[in-house]
């Protein structure tokens, strides 16, 4: 794939980066998107969500979510199972596009660009907004190739890939453990190492935001501790949105917390909604909503 040299992954100018970078992907005029976007530097808001509804075909999974996500913070999404927090997380990088029948209404602005307008290329969105999944899902390739996959797609020069791989693995606190076996299978790593590899893979394309969907749910407490330390370090460079079932985890690592709950309508369909969104310290000490309090104190599941 041929690409302009200046379009490498190290070029982190948002938001015109959302426009397709090479001709094969060009669906829109780059300058048009740039013109739509206000200047980035001043704002500290990465995402502005207004009245977000998510439907799976006719079923409304999530309704009326309005919140802003700040840059270089950890935003935690908590709530009981089925409350739509993972569904909401997957809106930020248009991962829901992959699900047949999924539909997002309302607006999600990313640095002022509406992510769901026709002119936005979801592939470019996912380069800016990386994702780490619930179960570690490395590619069936070597450790090296796992990290190098994204940068190669983004057209990073062959000579620079080595540095990107080392840098990403170092940033993910994995380099020392794997530097002697980079060419070996990623499946030979432990669960915690695999998850850190997935984090390295996500940051190798130098995204702006990293989404994490219960990244520690399959890990033991020690591996969980390491990932949490890592998240705390990563927020100096990235904006992080994390879904977690573990409220202590949310309390430990996040700056902002959004509590979701679920309500069943008369037909028995369960629709998630945002109950409260506030600084984490407030949510866990002095929540506004009685439902939040009941949940975090463990009285309601």
């Amino acid at each position, binding site marked *: 794939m041929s690409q302009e040299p200046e379009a490498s992954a190290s070029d982190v100018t948002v938001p015109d980066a959302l426009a397709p970078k090479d001709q094969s*992907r060009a669906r829109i005029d780059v300058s048009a998107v740039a013109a739509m976007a206000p200047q980035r530097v001043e704002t500290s808001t990465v995402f502005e969500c207004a009245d977000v509804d998510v439907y799976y075909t006719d079923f409304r999974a999530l309704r009326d979510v309005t919140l802003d996500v700040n840059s270089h913070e950890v935003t935690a999404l908590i709530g009981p199972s089925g409350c739509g927090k993972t569904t909401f997380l997957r809106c930020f990088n248009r991962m829901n596009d*992959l699900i047949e029948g999924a539909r997002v209404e309302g607006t999600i602005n990313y640095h002022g660009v509406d992510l769901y307008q026709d002119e936005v290329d979801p592939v470019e969105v996912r380069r800016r907004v990386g994702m780490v999944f619930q179960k570690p899902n490395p590619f069936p390739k070597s450790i090296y190739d796992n990290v190098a*996959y994204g940068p190669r797609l*983004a057209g990073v020069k062959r000579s620079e890939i080595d540095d990107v791989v080392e840098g990403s693995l170092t940033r993910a606190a994995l380099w020392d453990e794997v530097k002697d076996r980079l060419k070996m299978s990623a*499946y030979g790593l432990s669960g915690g190492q695999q998850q850190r590899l997935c984090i390295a*893979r996500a940051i190798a394309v130098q995204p702006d935001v990293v989404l994490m969907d219960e990244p520690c749910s399959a890990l033991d407490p020690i591996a969980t501790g390491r990932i949490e330390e890592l998240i705390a370090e990563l927020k100096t460079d990235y904006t992080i949105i994390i879904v977690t079932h573990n409220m202590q985890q949310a309390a430990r690592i996040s700056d902002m917390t959004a509590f979701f709950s679920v309500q069943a309508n008369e037909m028995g369909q369960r629709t998630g909604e945002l109950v409260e969104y506030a600084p984490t310290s407030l949510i866990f000490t002095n929540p506004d909503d009685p439902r939040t309090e009941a949940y975090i104190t463990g009285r309601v599941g």
Partner: protein
Amino acid sequence: MSVLTTPAGIAADAADVLRRRPGADIAGAVFRWLLIGATVFATGFLGVLLAVMIVDGWDVLSGNLWYFLTNGFSQRSAAESGVSQGIIGSLQVALVTGVFAVPIGVATAIYLVEYAQDSRFARIVELNIRNLAGVPSIVYGLLGLAVFVQTIDRFTKGASVIAGGMTLAALVLPIIVITSVEALKAVPDSLREAAYGVGATKWEVLSRQVLPAALSTILTGTVLALARALGEAAPLILVGAATGFLSFGDANMFETFTGPYTALPVQIFNFARLPGADWGVNAAAASVVILVLVLAVNGLAIYLRNRFEKQW
């Protein structure tokens, strides 16, 4: 049934309650022996078949096997007849079958799984393809005669190797589509999501992650389908293999694809039809030859699978 009352009572009963009672699981034991019996019957049947073929064809297999393999059909006598035309014809037909069936079949599967996904259209197409896999092969022979031999005879030159190969391609196409669909569905969605998550396009996800992951299964299914094509006689008889005797003359290898031909299973059929015990010996020997050929192709499938299934 003992009632659990006091700790002392539980302790007193324990030895008795836990003791193994012979005959408690008769149904399980009977079932197990039924399964063993079925397995023995199936393999035994195959063994007998193989033994009968080898014994019947022994005169040819032990005496002049090389002559049998390297010489063509002779109307004069069974002893002067061989199956070289059939072997070459079968391999040529299988080659044409593969050329037509594999790309179309795999492409269809990719479309159904990755693009049409779970749409109504995809489900209807898939159901029909599964039904097509159950259509008797003679029906495909009729199709081949009508379409490949007669309608597009400018391309196939009538009842040629190409027409035969295309007929068998139509026959095995459903099998290739089904196995490829299953192989693609077996690739976990987490792999696709991982690739999309770092900004891969659909094409990049497919070509670099999903297809490599499914390749070994697709290959195995494809080769097994070709092995099935190797063994088919009925449709080939309809599209010209019965009358054709491969003769190179001064034709080059490429021209033989548009000329008359025969195939191994058809030759067996011809041998078996002729009167006289010595032709029967030939039929049995040719059966052993085709069995070895099919076995070799299946062996290739296993080799390829192990080769590509490099588990990371």
